[in-house]
């Protein structure tokens, strides 16, 4: 943080003619770039990790040809996709066809603005940041619907219909699961939610809200169209779902959005249920002081990496769900459980149970 203050000071002294508004816009721009550039790099290497991890789980090696141990594979993939031709289907609505990938990636990146990485490290500290995450996250469905509709092709349309109904129903489940967190923390500000979990691993919300944590993780799999719930793409049923007709960079943008959303959901799970930037060794004698030098952002990223690994693990392990089974899971299993747990949390709050309330 001292480094950042010094940097802001430097910007003000180097460019003295910048007044308050312009300077703050300039600083926000720098913050956004400092967030998005590493994010894109993580997305690229997440695809590599996915192929490697699933490869080893299936007793294969995975990509190992480009660069040492295949380290340059994502770069090669990106270059290949950039140089490929973008094909427009006949009689497709070209404006909406091109708008769809933009609508998919823009919310996936915009949501990151409110994620707290450490005490005081965020792009913006919004008072209603959790609602902002849910609202902007719900816009991502437009990318899929428009891609299906504008392609003028039947399999994308089917994929889009299935996706839209799934995403809308699982948004409700995610919303209800996060309401319990809001009830305990007493705030919809992500910074405050993380600060409320201070004081060691027993203060983290995954203990009183364990069913909600599981439901949130499974719903996050559906929201990001990941296996075993990848009916949107549905390779074995509807060829490739919404992005059948997309090629080259337009397709790559969809993949970028999907992986950015996966990482976002992992970070959200950590922030809401696993103490955000707090060290797991807090309030433990000796260990706390031994690990005191580790900055909070390292803990946050380590926990996030674990959840990102879970995504890959789940994909390699479980067979795919049928469409009506996923719908039943949402409306008849998860939604009643979340509503019951809201009452349980209300009761726990009244009884002032444990260290959480």
């Amino acid at each position, binding site marked *: 943080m001292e480094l950042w203050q010094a940097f802001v000071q430097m910007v003000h002294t180097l460019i003295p003619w910048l007044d308050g508004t312009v300077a703050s816009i300039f600083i926000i721009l720098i913050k956004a770039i400092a967030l998005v550039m590493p994010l894109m790099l993580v997305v690229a290497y997440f695809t590599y990790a996915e192929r490697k991890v699933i490869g080893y789980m299936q007793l294969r090696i995975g990509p190992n040809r480009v660069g040492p141990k295949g380290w340059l594979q994502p770069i090669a993939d990106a270059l290949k996709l950039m140089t490929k031709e973008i094909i427009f289907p006949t009689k497709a609505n070209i404006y909406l066809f091109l708008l769809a990938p933009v609508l998919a990636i823009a919310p996936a990146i915009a949501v990151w603005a409110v994620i707290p990485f450490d005490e005081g490290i965020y792009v913006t500290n919004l*008072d209603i940041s959790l609602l902002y995450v849910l609202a902007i996250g719900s816009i991502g469905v437009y990318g899929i619907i428009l891609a299906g*509709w504008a392609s003028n092709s039947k399999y994308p349309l089917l994929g889009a219909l299935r996706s839209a109904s799934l995403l809308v129903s699982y948004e409700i489940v995610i919303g209800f699961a996060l309401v319990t967190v809001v009830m305990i923390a007493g705030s919809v500000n992500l910074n405050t939610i993380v600060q409320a979990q201070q004081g060691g691993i027993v203060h983290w919300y995954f203990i009183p809200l364990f069913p909600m944590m599981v439901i949130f993780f499974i719903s996050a799999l559906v929201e990001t169209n990941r296996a075993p719930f990848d009916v949107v793409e549905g390779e074995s049923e509807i060829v490739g779902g919404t992005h059948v007709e997309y090629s080259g960079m337009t397709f790559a943008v969809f993949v970028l959005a999907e992986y950015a959303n996966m990482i976002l959901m992992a970070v959200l799970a950590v922030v809401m249920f696993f103490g955000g930037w707090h060290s797991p060794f807090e309030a433990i004698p000796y260990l706390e002081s031994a690990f005191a030098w580790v900055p909070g952002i390292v803990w946050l990223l380590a926990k996030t990496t674990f959840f990102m690994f879970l995504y890959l693990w789940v994909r390699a392990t479980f067979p795919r769900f049928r469409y009506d089974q996923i719908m039943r899971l949402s409306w008849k299993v998860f939604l009643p459980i979340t509503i019951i747990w809201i009452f349980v949390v209300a009761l726990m709050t009244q009884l002032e149970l444990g260290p959480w309330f």
Partner: protein
Amino acid sequence: MNSEQIIFYILSFWFVASSLAMIFSRNAAKAVLFLVLAFFSAASIWILLEAEFLAITLILVYVGAVMVLFLFVIKMLNIDKSTLRAKFTGYLPLGLIVAVIIVAEMSLVLGANQFGLDVFSSPARHGADYSNITVLAMQLYTTYVYPFELAAVLLLIAIIAAITLVHRNETSRKKQSISEQVNVQAKDRVRLVSITSPSKEDK
């Protein structure tokens, strides 16, 4: 003009322009997207008014759910444009009269003589620690708790009514019994028969 006024006029321009574009666009899907843009502009104007909870709720509910269902329906419909346009001139006089009445009413109710700066003083600016959602929640759950609960119950009734309307004819519905599917045993589905395979010498 300060920067806030400039932002306000840009947003208002977008609001009006996207609303007009929504009405005049021939493609129903594009009309829905222009309406989404109009919602975004309205939400941004609300954020300028420090009503950030309302703004985010507008996006969460209308853009995130209602408009998605609109797009969903539009994809299912087979809209025949010629029948829609056939009676356009016939409805035009009535439509114009209704439009004039609505514009007159709105200018009377929302005009400068009702909401001008001489009638209403401009609202006070709040500090950075002002939490819109907390203030709103305090009002909703204390002063207005009964109207709030009543509205919620009304919505619940509407949901139940809609579902019962759809589920009137139980006979025409195909239903899967999940418990039956889950509890199925291997011996119910596959019958293994042992057959003595012919040995190589018999050929």
